[in-house]
C-alpha cells in the first residue's frame, strides 16, 4: 500500500530542474573526459615547419611528397630527400631541434615520424587515384597541414593504437573533414561522386 502511494508522488518543478542540470553537468564532464581517457599523446621526434618549407619549394606538396613511377606514394620523404638541401655540417636554423635533425642527416638515419593519417592495416588507399586521377587537392583530406608552422602532438587511441585523425577531433564527429578519415567519410564521398563502392576498392 505504501509503495503504491510513493509511486503517485508528484514531481515538483525543482525536481525536473535538478534532473536537467544533472544531465548537463554529466554530459559536459563526459565530453571533456572521454577524449582525455581514450587518447594518449606522443611528441613527434622533431619539429617541422611546413609553412617555411612550402615557401622554399617550387612544386607545392608534390616537391617532397611524390608519387613514384609505379603508382605508389612516397609518403613522408626520406632523409635522403632532406639531404638534397640540408648538409650535415651546415645548420640552416638554430636550437636543439636543428642539432637533433643534423644528427639524423649525419648518420643517414630515418626519422621516426609519427604519421597522423596512418590507416588501419586492412585499408588500401591509393594516392594516385585521388590526386593524379581524380585531381583532388591534398587539403581536401589533410586540411591545412601544409600551412602549419609546428607539428602538433600525435594522439592515438589507447585501445586500438590508431591515430586520432582517423576518428576526428570532435567527440561526436562534428568537426567533419578535413580532420576525419573514417570509412563512412570515404564511402560518402565515393557515392556522391559516383565512384565504385565495392569493398575491394578500399580494402585489402
Amino acid at each position, binding site marked *: 500500500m505504501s509503495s503504491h502511494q510513493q509511486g503517485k508522488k508528484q514531481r515538483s518543478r525543482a525536481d525536473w530542474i535538478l534532473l536537467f542540470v544533472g544531465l548537463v553537468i554529466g554530459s559536459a564532464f563526459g565530453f571533456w573526459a572521454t577524449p582525455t581517457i581514450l587518447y594518449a599523446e606522443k611528441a613527434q621526434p622533431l619539429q617541422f615547419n611546413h609553412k617555411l618549407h612550402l615557401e622554399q619549394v617550387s612544386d607545392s606538396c608534390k616537391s617532397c611528397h611524390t*608519387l*613514384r*613511377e*609505379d*603508382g*605508389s606514394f612516397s609518403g613522408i620523404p626520406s632523409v635522403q630527400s632532406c639531404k638534397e638541401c640540408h648538409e650535415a655540417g651546415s645548420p640552416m636554423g638554430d636550437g636543439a631541434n636543428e642539432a637533433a635533425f643534423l644528427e639524423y642527416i649525419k648518420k643517414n638515419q630515418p626519422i621516426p615520424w609519427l604519421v597522423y593519417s596512418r590507416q*588501419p*592495416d*586492412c585499408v*588500401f588507399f*591509393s594516392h*594516385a*587515384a585521388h590526386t*593524379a*586521377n581524380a585531381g583532388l587537392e591534398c587539403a581536401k583530406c589533410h586540411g591545412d597541414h601544409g600551412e602549419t608552422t609546428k607539428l602538433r602532438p600525435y594522439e592515438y587511441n589507447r585501445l586500438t593504437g590508431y591515430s586520432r585523425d582517423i576518428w576526428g577531433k570532435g567527440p561526436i564527429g562534428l568537426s567533419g573533414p578535413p580532420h576525419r578519415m573514417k570509412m563512412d567519410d570515404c564511402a560518402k564521398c565515393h557515392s556522391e561522386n559516383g565512384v*565504385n563502392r*565495392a*569493398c*575491394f*576498392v578500399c*580494402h*585489402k
Partner: protein
Amino acid sequence: MVIDLDKCTGCGACSVACMSENNIGVLHNETDKIRSITWMRVYQIDNGKSFPDTEVAFIPRPCMHCQGGKSGTPGQAFFQEGPMDEEAHPPCVSVCPATATDYDEETGIVSQIPTRCIGCRYCVAACPYHARYFNWYDVPWPKGSPRALSPFVSPRMRGVVEKCTFCYQRYQAARNKAMVSGGEVGEMDYQTACTEACPSGAITFGQLQNPEHKVHKLISSDYTFRLLEQLHTNPKVYYMSKREWVRKMADNYVTRHNKFAQAATQSGH
C-alpha cells in the same frame, strides 16, 4: 581464369605461390586438412580403372568468383529471385549477414573483408566449391617471420573467413601504375601469383570478355568446362581437358548452347 588440366602435373607450385603471396600462415598441425587453409587447393581425380588403364588428373581450385544470377536461362536458374535476375548473385554473397563479402561489377571479383566478418560461416556452407576457409586458430607466426609478410595483404585473425581474391593487391598496384602513366591495365600488368608460378603454364589469366586477352579465345574451345555447372553459379574459372572422362567427372551436364548463353553475359576477370 582458364586452367588446362592436361598441362597440370599436380606439383602444387600454385598453392605455395598463393600462400606466400597472400600471407597464409602455417598452422601447428597442417595435416588436419579440415582446419588448414589453402586458398588454391589441388584436388586429384582418377578414372577409376585399374592398371594399365588408370589415368589421373589434378584440379587446382581457387575461388571461382561466381557471378550467379545472371544466367542465360533464367527459367532454370538456381539463384533466380524475380527482379533480382539481372544482378550478380554469388551463393556466398547472398547469405552473408554482415556484408563482409560483395561482388564488384567492375572487376567481377568476389571480395572478402576479414575485418568485417563475424565468423558465422554461412558462406563456407553456401560455397559449393569449398573455396572459403575459416580461421580456427591464430597463425603461430615464428619469431621474426611477420617481418617477411607482404605489406599489401592484410593478415587475418582467428574467427574470420578468408578466400582467394585473385591476388587483388596486384590489380590495385597495376591500376595505380596505369593512373600515373596514363595508360590502361594491360593483360600482363595484372597476373595472379598462381599463374606466374605454374611451371607448365597450365593457368591463363585475363579478362574473359576482352577479345584481345588469351582467356577469351580459350573459353570458346570445345574442351572448356566449369565445375558444377548445373548449379548455375556461373563461375569465372574455366577448366580445359581433351579427356572426356575428366570433363564428365567435373559434372559438366549442361549443353553447349546453354553454357555459352551464360558465358556471354559475363563481365570482368
